[in-house]
């Protein structure tokens, strides 16, 4: 069931291309703004790079999370979705997975451009970097899906989402920036193990709580 729900989201996106194209366009414009606002040497930029990179990822994930549930508001298709014989937790998981796919896809395009435009080198521990990105994305998508999925019926939910989402993900972003910083500077796993554990526990806790809470939020 999850598979067909995710495929539905992917199919809509392949036809319309509106979410990913706006995420990528927005991400690149933010990179440009960063590149123009700090005219610093690459070594200085390298020092700030982890924080800048994660700020861009959070900004694009806001666009993603706003759209992913508003898709269902068009033609009131959420009514059909919620009245279909699907467990609501499954709907939550499917939204989580499809937003994870969209986020990773746009990050694959944005990250090389980030390193290119800010003229800094790719990290040597690429595998560790990708692992961190994956698990932080999982955390962002799980808490983002539950917040965006619950507020989708409120008017001006586009404004509410960042107000609720930003403070909630502070621990995740602290851990992401710290661990990315340590990976960029070639530190061994022992040094950033504690951050990885925090990221993992955040993702798991909010994935499970979303899974348990979502049916009750949408139940009227």
């Amino acid at each position: 069931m999850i598979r067909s729900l995710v495929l539905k989201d992917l199919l809509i996106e392949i036809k319309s291309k509106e979410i990913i194209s706006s995420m990528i366009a927005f991400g690149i414009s933010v990179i440009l703004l960063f590149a123009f606002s700090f005219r610093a040497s690459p070594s200085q930029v390298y020092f700030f790079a982890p924080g800048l990179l994660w700020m861009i990822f959070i900004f694009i994930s806001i666009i993603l999370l706003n759209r992913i549930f508003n898709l269902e508001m068009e033609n009131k298709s959420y009514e059909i979705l919620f009245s279909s014989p699907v467990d609501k937790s499954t709907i939550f998981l499917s939204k989580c997975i499809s937003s994870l796919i969209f986020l990773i896809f746009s990050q694959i395009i944005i990250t090389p451009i980030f390193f290119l435009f800010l003229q800094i080198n790719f990290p040597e521990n690429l595998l560790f970097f990708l692992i961190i990105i994956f698990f932080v994305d999982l955390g962002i998508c799980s808490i983002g899906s539950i917040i965006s999925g619950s507020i989708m019926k409120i008017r001006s939910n586009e404004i509410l989402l960042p107000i609720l989402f930003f403070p909630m993900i502070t621990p995740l972003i602290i851990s992401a920036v710290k661990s990315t910083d340590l990976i960029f500077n070639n530190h061994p796993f022992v040094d950033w193990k504690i951050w990885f554990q925090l990221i993992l526990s955040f993702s798991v806790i909010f994935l499970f709580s979303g899974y348990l809470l979502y049916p009750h939020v949408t139940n009227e």
Partner: protein
Amino acid sequence: MSSEIKFFHQNIYSKLFGLLIIFSWLILNYFVLFVTRIDPYQEMAQKIFYFHVPSAWVAGIAYLVVMISGINYLRTKNNYWDYVGYASAEIGTIFCALVLITGPIWATPIWGTSWSWEPRLTTVLIMFLIYLGYFSVRNFGKSLTTIKSISATIGVLAFLNVPIIYFSVKFWAEEVQLHPQPEMMEQPVDIYYTFLFSLIVFFMIYMYLLNYRIHILKIKSKLENILEDY
């Protein structure tokens, strides 16, 4: 007039409870200012501890109550739990604001700086911000049942986040672990009992305000029901 729409102060128990709180508040202030010893290092600045720490405790308890009533509301959809959760969130945020005000007042002379990214202070600040979002949800929404479920969810998620926020800030800024870690059991008798007394007084204030807000929210929803009927 039916007995249901009594004013809050017409209830004899809440009246007595209110008077008791005023009386104990005066006693607490007397103890804090004149009875407890003056700290040799921090001098009068240490006195704010009798207000800062209980505020933080009450804020924590209030947010725990928000989470518990949020879970209960999502399970039972009973409006009573929504009133408890909303009222407790309001009071918790007020006490959070008190912590954020009294903290820097104390820190300015002692640390020499008003703000430091200290885990407890930062956790309180982030909780405060999350709850500002909680109140905007309550203000933005039109349909009441949806709003109630959403705010219950946010209350649960916010409290689950507390330990993660605390530890991430703790490891993030390891060089600013300046927060005093006093062992209460080892304190002299006058400090220890005054502190316990201030905890009780703050908790009583919390209970009183909670009752009062629940009362108001009940009346409000009654009024809304009457208006809907017209």
